């Protein structure tokens, strides 16, 4: 087992794109953890008189003739590297703190939705028959609900707020996990050593969690990594529709929404918050892609 792990790691590290993805993810996690240290301002601090400042406010580039050097001079106005939003809040600080919401929703909702989906998939796949039918038809029912609409209706029913986003995003992720795990379970349960364990008198619960689940882990981890990317996108989409976390806390989607109104006069708000979402999601996708290749070389093409 240890040898296998090593090989996976080696293959992963050889894949440059996966490493870039991993770096983006790690940077993101660090930014989220160190937000209070990194953010130049309190992300909720308003300065109503200095709203919609352009990026680079407070920094002046000027050219001295004798030396030919470009100098950066900082005068007494406050520096806003990425400018300010419509309430005069520092955009950089808001984006830094916004990473917390994205990652939290990404990880926690995949943890919850993934666990529930996995358990349902294991049960459906293992027991088969009526149990399988009931569970999977219900999953199909959830799946047939266009997921954006499902998320919107759930958020409208639950009300805005971080907890509710996590619940809504968890729920829309359940059917995907259930399907994947069920498919794997169907294959794994026919394997010889499962049969052997069964004939040695192992209980169903033990069979499911000690023998079948570990064998589903590889695709599950890949799917979960990609799922985090999807969950971050879902959170941003919900916040963008005004169904996200409560103000004044920043989330990338809500910053994006706030900026939409000022797209023509202050496009930096929308631009930078969107780039944050794009790069984070890209990071998880790159990493997940690499992970898939590393875990299953047969799939690498």
């Amino acid at each position, binding site marked *: 087992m240890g040898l296998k792990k090593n090989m996976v790691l080696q293959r992963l590290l050889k894949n440059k794109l996966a490493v870039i993805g991993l770096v983006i993810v790690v940077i993101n996690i660090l930014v989220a953890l160190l937000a209070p240290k990194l953010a130049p301002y309190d992300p909720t601090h*308003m300065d*109503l008189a200095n709203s919609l400042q*352009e990026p680079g406010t407070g920094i002046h580039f000027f050219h001295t003739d004798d030396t030919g050097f470009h100098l950066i001079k900082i005068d007494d106005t406050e520096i806003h590297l990425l400018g300010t939003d419509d309430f005069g809040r520092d955009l950089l600080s808001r984006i830094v703190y916004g990473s917390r919401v994205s990652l939290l929703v990404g990880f926690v909702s995949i943890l919850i939705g993934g666990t529930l989906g996995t358990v349902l998939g294991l049960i459906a796949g293992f027991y088969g028959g009526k149990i399988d039918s009931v569970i999977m038809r219900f999953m199909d029912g959830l799946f047939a609900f266009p997921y954006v609409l499902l998320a919107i209706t759930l958020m409208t029913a639950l009300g805005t707020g971080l907890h509710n986003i996590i619940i809504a995003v968890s729920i829309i992720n359940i059917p995907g996990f259930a399907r994947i795990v069920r498919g794997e379970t169907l294959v794994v349960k026919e394997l010889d050593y499962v049969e052997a364990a069964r004939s040695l008198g192992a209980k169903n619960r033990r069979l499911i969690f000690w023998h079948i689940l570990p064998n589903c882990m590889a695709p599950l981890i890949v799917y979960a990594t990609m799922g985090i990317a999807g969950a971050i996108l879902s959170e941003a989409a919900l916040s963008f529709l005004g169904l996200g976390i409560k103000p004044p806390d920043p989330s990338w989607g809500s910053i994006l929404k706030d900026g939409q109104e000022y797209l*023509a*006069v202050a*496009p*930096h708000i929308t631009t930078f918050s969107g780039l944050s979402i794009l790069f984070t999601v890209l990071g998880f996708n790159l990493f997940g892609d690499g992970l898939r290749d590393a875990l299953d070389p047969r799939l690498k093409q």
Partner: protein
Amino acid sequence: MKVKSKLLLSILIITMIFALVVTGCGKSGEEAKQGEPETKEGGSLVVGLSQVPKTLDPVLYTGTYESNVMLAIFDTLVTYTDDQQKIVGALATDWKVSDDMLEYTFNLRDDVYFHDGKYVKGRKLTAEDIKYSLERSAKESAMGRLSDLKEAEVLDEKTVKLVLKQPNAAFLARLTDPGNGIVAKEEVEGWGDAFGQNPVGTGAFVFKSWAKDDNVTMVRNDKYWAAKPNLDELVFKFIPDLSMMSNALISGDIDIATEVQGPDRQKLVNDQNIDVQTMPGMNVYFAAMNMKEGPTADIRVRQAISYALDVDAAVSNIFQFGGATRAYVPLPSKSWGYDSSLEDLAIKSRNLEKAKDLLKEAGYENGFKTTIVTPNKPLRAKWAQIMQTQLAEVGIEADIEKLEWGTYSDKVSKGEAPIYLLAWTWYPDPDFFLFQFFHQDQIGRLGNGQAFDDKEVTDLIDKAKGSTTDQAERKAIYKEVIEKAMAKVPRVEGWHKENINGIRKRVNDYKICPDDQVRIVTQERNVWVEK
């Protein structure tokens, strides 16, 4: 492998550059004016509206985007002057009110004809039509636009008497609503449910066609009683996106853009071919504080909140491109009941020390937790956020609850909102504001969700409504109502939102109205266009 990471890097850089290029911006502007040219007949005028009407049947309409269109097709018995300061006759030449204020007798004009519809062919208007239309409204309007009407009696061809259930000095204001427009019975019954798609009235323009989601087109009514319209054709075009509407105005696709906002206004001001007209609207936006429950039941806390909020800063931030004036009084500044001397009763500027002292006196030295309830509308959502920050400076920790309208109105009506942000807009008669806000009977309803409970104020409001129809007398009573109400610091007034229209210079004789309704031909105006 090297190639791969280099490529990725260059993609990153390109994206960043794109982001920065796109971020730059500029601004400048000036305005030009022209002399008065001579009236010309003919031509077509296109007005942009932001929402698509669902029906043009007066009794069924629910939104101003529908009444805008209906105003051109239908007439009412009486109407407001264009500046909305006075009620004058329209289909009625004059009227008498009985001493008990229960009977209104109207004399009708003799020169009013219905449009040529499918079922009426330019028939003359009679008193029967008034009776039919108004009783229909009283019975069928879900909005209760004429709920005061008991019955209408036809005295002769040209005279009709309206009998009320109880005295109501604001009754005439009700009659000015396009929802109480006069319709022809034959058409309503002939079309049945489809009447809303095929309206026939007596107004300045005759309905011609309705391309769903795109436009309503009408042509001039040559026999219009007030004046022969100068325009050949009037088109209402539906453009749901407001910035798109401004673009359409600039490109000349439309002649009048309604509901111009913030950043767009600047764009229009900069355009040589466009006039921008601004008018304080018949509205007031405010934050009401619960007077029955929670810390805000204490007047000192309400005063403290008033001192803690910097309304000027909030209004100039929310409307950084213009579009509103600060409000001080619980009445639109364009209502005839408004008296600017009342403004001095308001807490006008921020004073954190005083706020803290008042909180201390009330026993909330360390502040308290509360909730600001707002509907999911951008302006009020912004104000809520600013309030939250400003209240935090005196230790009041406010949570923001942003709700959809249905939930919001339910919660506020039940008196469950500690602080709520509401916007109120209605007829210019103060009754439609003050009765709704401060009358005891309205406790448990949206307007008075804060439970403003004062017998004296209630009696005064009843008196202003039920004892006289004289506008000056009523204004004096309402002044007293406002003074007594404001003494209790029930709310923090926010702003009067301005109505802004963009008008192409080829359009003449058009003026924006306080109620933000588009009026093309009235007794005072007859819009015309240069070709």
